[in-house]
């Protein structure tokens, strides 16, 4: 059945993938056979741009629609549409034509209801709202009005046709929707979990809204085991734990995972703050040389992380001075200093980091388990758009861009494991690992983003004519920034 799905006007690229992941989690797709990346059917209202908050989505049942909406972060509401039109006269016809057997069960005398008037891209005064509600007398409401806690919530929503439409390409025509709410996101989560009231924070803590979105992409639910190999202050695992998952995290920086800022300000205390169950395990380990026992595989239901990609925080791996062979002699720790020795670490290029992540995920995820992680993209580099990391075990489910600066953006990649981790794949990964080790310095130069993001811009005056043309072809609206 088709439903009207209205989104919050935020993180536009993340909206449909979230609904699709949740729909899968709540059983909208019959089986896993289709490859794990089937899509729902979507439509947008006439004359609307894809970035519009109004979408139509085909969901198998009202139960699925309700579950999806209530669990989501970006769905303002999913509605059973009773009518849509360009004017109020046409709306009356549309609603009257909507079959009575769909309407009457929600209009009975023993029920309670509420009508809310909402708008996008315009403000409707209180008086105008009342007039619009009064004009709906042709709908035979028999129930009592209850504004606080009604059984049935009806929404009258309109968009206007003026140019500056919240930074979107102009909507050509006014459109009015009337529908019954099936479910809506619980955005109260966000102030509860907002970073500014969290005790222990690091410089790259994931903001609460994004962490919840990542957990939804990973289809986290109670009893699942979720792993974050770059756990830091635990901001991603907190979202997973909120949705009932068992969590496990590792980090190469022992000060972050073990000590924090004291007994009441560390990763554990962050979980305690929200009354969440503690992580099952936290350890200090290196993503480059993970300490998992040989033969251990397919234990995690999801891996969710924000790898250090060297723009705000650089990655580290073990090896340290040993990798600088030729600069300093190969380093051996003297026997009497071994107990308290603090091993030096070496920089970890983005390319190698992502290679290791995919390899670990391919081995440690269950079949149909999901890997959800951020991947940075240089925005000037048009060709890079379709060059996301690939792995024979995984297929890409979705990619959602969030623009961070004029130079670069990050893309949330959701992948699903579809194939087993074979001997051949393991051997190829081992060889690649050695390749990275042998050519450490080369990869540090080629495989990093920092210089590209922070280097001064190319001189613009030389090819001004060209750049103007290429810039104008790009849509110039806030779209992905919001």
């Amino acid at each position, binding site marked *: 059945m088709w439903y009207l799905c209205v989104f919050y006007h935020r993180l536009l690229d993340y909206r449909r993938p979230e609904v699709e992941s949740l729909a899968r989690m709540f059983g909208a797709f019959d089986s896993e056979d289709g490859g794990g990346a089937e899509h729902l059917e979507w439509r947008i209202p006439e004359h609307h741009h894809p970035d519009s908050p109004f979408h139509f989505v085909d969901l198998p049942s009202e139960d699925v629609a309700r579950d999806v909406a209530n669990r989501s972060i970006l769905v303002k509401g999913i509605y059973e549409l009773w009518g849509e039109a360009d004017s109020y006269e046409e709306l009356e016809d549309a609603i009257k034509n909507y079959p009575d057997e769909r309407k009457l069960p929600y209009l009975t005398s023993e029920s309670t209801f509420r009508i809310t008037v909402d708008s996008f891209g315009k403000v409707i005064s209180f008086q105008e709202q009342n007039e619009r509600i009064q004009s709906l007398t042709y709908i035979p409401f028999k129930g009592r009005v209850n504004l606080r806690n009604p059984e049935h919530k009806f929404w009258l929503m309109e968009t206007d046709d003026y140019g500056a439409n919240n930074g979107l390409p102009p909507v050509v025509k006014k459109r009015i929707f009337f529908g019954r709410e099936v479910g809506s996101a619980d955005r109260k989560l966000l102030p509860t979990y907002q970073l500014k009231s969290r005790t222990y924070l690091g410089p790259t803590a994931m903001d609460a809204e994004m962490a919840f979105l990542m957990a939804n992409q990973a289809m986290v639910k109670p009893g699942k085991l979720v792993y974050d190999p770059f756990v830091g202050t635990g901001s991603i695992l907190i979202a997973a734990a909120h949705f009932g998952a068992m969590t496990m995290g590792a980090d190469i920086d022992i000060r972050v995972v073990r000590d924090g800022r004291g007994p009441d300000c560390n990763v554990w205390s962050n979980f305690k703050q929200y009354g969440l169950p503690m992580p099952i395990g936290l350890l200090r380990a*290196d993503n480059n040389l993970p300490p998992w026992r040989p033969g251990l595989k397919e*234990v995690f239901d999801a891996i969710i992380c924000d790898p250090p990609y060297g723009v705000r925080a650089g990655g580290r791996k073990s090896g340290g001075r040993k990798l600088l062979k030729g600069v300093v002699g190969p380093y051996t720790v003297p026997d009497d200093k071994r107990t308290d020795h603090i091993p030096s670490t070496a920089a970890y290029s983005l390319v190698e980091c992502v290679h290791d992540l995919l390899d670990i995920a391919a081995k440690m995820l269950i079949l149909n388990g999901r890997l959800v992680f951020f991947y940075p993209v240089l925005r000037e580099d048009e060709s890079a758009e379709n060059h996301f990391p690939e792995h024979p075990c995984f297929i890409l489910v979705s990619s959602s861009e969030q623009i961070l600066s004029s130079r670069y953006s990050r893309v949330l990649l959701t992948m699903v494991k579809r194939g087993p981790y074979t001997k051949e794949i393991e051997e190829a990964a081992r060889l690649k690992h050695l390749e990275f080790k042998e050519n450490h310095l080369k990869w540090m130069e080629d495989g990093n983003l920092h210089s590209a993001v922070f280097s001064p811009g190319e001189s613009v005056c030389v090819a001004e004519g060209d750049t103007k043309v290429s810039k104008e072809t790009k849509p110039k609206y806030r779209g992905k920034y919001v």
Partner: protein
Amino acid sequence: MRLLTHNMLSSNIKGVINGFPLGIVVEKVIEKPVEMNPDFLKNMFAKIEWKALVDASRSMGYTELPEQADSSMLDSVDFLQRFHHALLELHLEEGALVCPETGRKFPVNKGIPNMLLHEDEV
């Protein structure tokens, strides 16, 4: 560190072939109650190296796990409770994990095992 974590870890020092299971040096064990989730336990049972779990729980002072176990025992609530207790409620708060081949100690402080290798072990 819970024994679930212990059951997943091995010593990955260069050249070590049998880095599993890691021995346990106990300085301080604490018990933290965790709500039992039978589905999770049944799921994990297939992934667990049982003997390593039995030995590890003994070195932590818990001797209630049977020597052998198979999946038919998962129907017994009593067994599930013991399994749950050993796997998720016993914590090694202070101590060390010991590489069975080289004797190298990986310290465990404040419940966090430090599995990072020295430069010459990579």
